[in-house]
C-alpha cells in the first residue's frame, strides 16, 4: 500500500510541478504549486514525519502561498499571460541555475545515497509529541532564540514593506 501511495503522491507532485512551469496564467501556476506542496506533504506523512507534513501545509501551502498570490496580484502581470520568452541576462541566468540543479540531482543519484535502505516500522522520532519533548527540554535555548529570529523577521519585513510603500 505504501509504495502505491508513494508513487501516487510523487506523480501528483511531478505532474503539478510541470503544470506550474508551463501554465500561462500566473495565478494558476501558484495554485498548481499548492497542489505540489500538498503532494510533498503526503510524502512526508509516508516518511513518518506528520509534524513536518502539517507545518508544510500550514506554513507553505497556507501562508507563503498567500504572499505569492498577493505579489502576483500586486504586480501588474497581465502582459505576462501572453508570455514572451525572456531573452538576454534572465535567460542565461535561468539556464545556469537549472543546469546547476540538474548537476546536483545527477550527483546525488550517482553517490548512492538514494539507494540506502529505508527504515521500516513506526518511528517515534517524527511524532509531534516527541518533537515537543525534545524542543521544550533539550533544545529549549534554540527554541527561545527562534522567537528572537521571528521578532527580527517581523520588524525587518514590515520595514522593507513600508519602504516600498513610500
Amino acid at each position, binding site marked *: 500500500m505504501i509504495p502505491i501511495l508513494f508513487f501516487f503522491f510523487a506523480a501528483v507532485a511531478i505532474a503539478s510541478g510541470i503544470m506550474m512551469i508551463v501554465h500561462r496564467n500566473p495565478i494558476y501556476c501558484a495554485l498548481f504549486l499548492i497542489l505540489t506542496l500538498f503532494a510533498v506533504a503526503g510524502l512526508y506523512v*509516508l516518511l513518518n514525519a506528520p509534524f513536518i507534513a*502539517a507545518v508544510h501545509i500550514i506554513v507553505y501551502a497556507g*501562508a507563503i502561498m498567500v504572499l505569492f498570490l*498577493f505579489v502576483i*496580484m500586486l504586480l501588474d502581470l497581465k502582459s505576462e499571460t501572453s508570455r514572451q520568452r525572456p531573452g538576454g541576462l534572465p535567460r542565461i541566468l535561468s539556464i545556469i541555475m537549472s543546469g546547476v540543479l540538474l548537476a546536483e540531482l545527477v550527483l546525488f543519484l550517482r553517490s548512492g545515497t538514494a539507494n540506502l535502505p529505508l527504515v521500516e516500522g513506526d518511528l517515534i522520532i517524527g511524532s509531534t509529541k516527541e518533537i515537543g519533548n525534545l524542543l521544550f527540554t533539550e533544545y*529549549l535555548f534554540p527554541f527561545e532564540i527562534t522567537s528572537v529570529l*521571528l521578532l527580527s*523577521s*517581523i520588524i525587518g519585513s514590515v520595514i522593507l514593506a513600508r519602504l516600498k510603500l513610500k
Partner: protein
Amino acid sequence: MLFNFATALVFLIFGGLFVLLNLGISRILQARNPHPVKISTYECGELPEGESWIQFNIRFYVVALVFLIFEVEIIFLFPWALVFKDLGLFAFVEMMIFVFILLVGLAYVWAKGDLDWDKPQSVPAPELSQSYEQKEVTETVDS
C-alpha cells in the same frame, strides 16, 4: 501512526471524487448557450465594472506578512500543547517568554502605524441618470 492518516487519505479521495463527480454531471447535463451577459462575472445582480484582476491594496501585503510570522508561532504551540501536561509550569513559562518576545514585534508594528488602514477617499456616487438598460447595451457591445 501511519494508519491514523488513512482517515485523512480517505477524506481526500472522497473530497476529490465529490468535486469531480458533480462537475462531470453538470458538464453532461448542462445546456451551453454562451452569451456575453451570461458569462460575465457574477456581482450579485450588479453589472460588473472592469476586470476581476485588479491591483490589490499593498496594505493587505503587510497584514499577510505579520500573519505569516504569527502562524509560525502557532506551529510551535502544537507540540507544546502535547507535552504541556508532562512538563507543567516549566513549559508554561517557556511559552510565555516565547509569546512575549513575539508580542514585542506586534506592539512595534502596531505603534509604528503599519496596521493602520488608510481608507480610500469616498468617491462621489456616479450619476444615476445612466439607466440600467443603457449600461447593459454598452457592456454587451464592448464585449
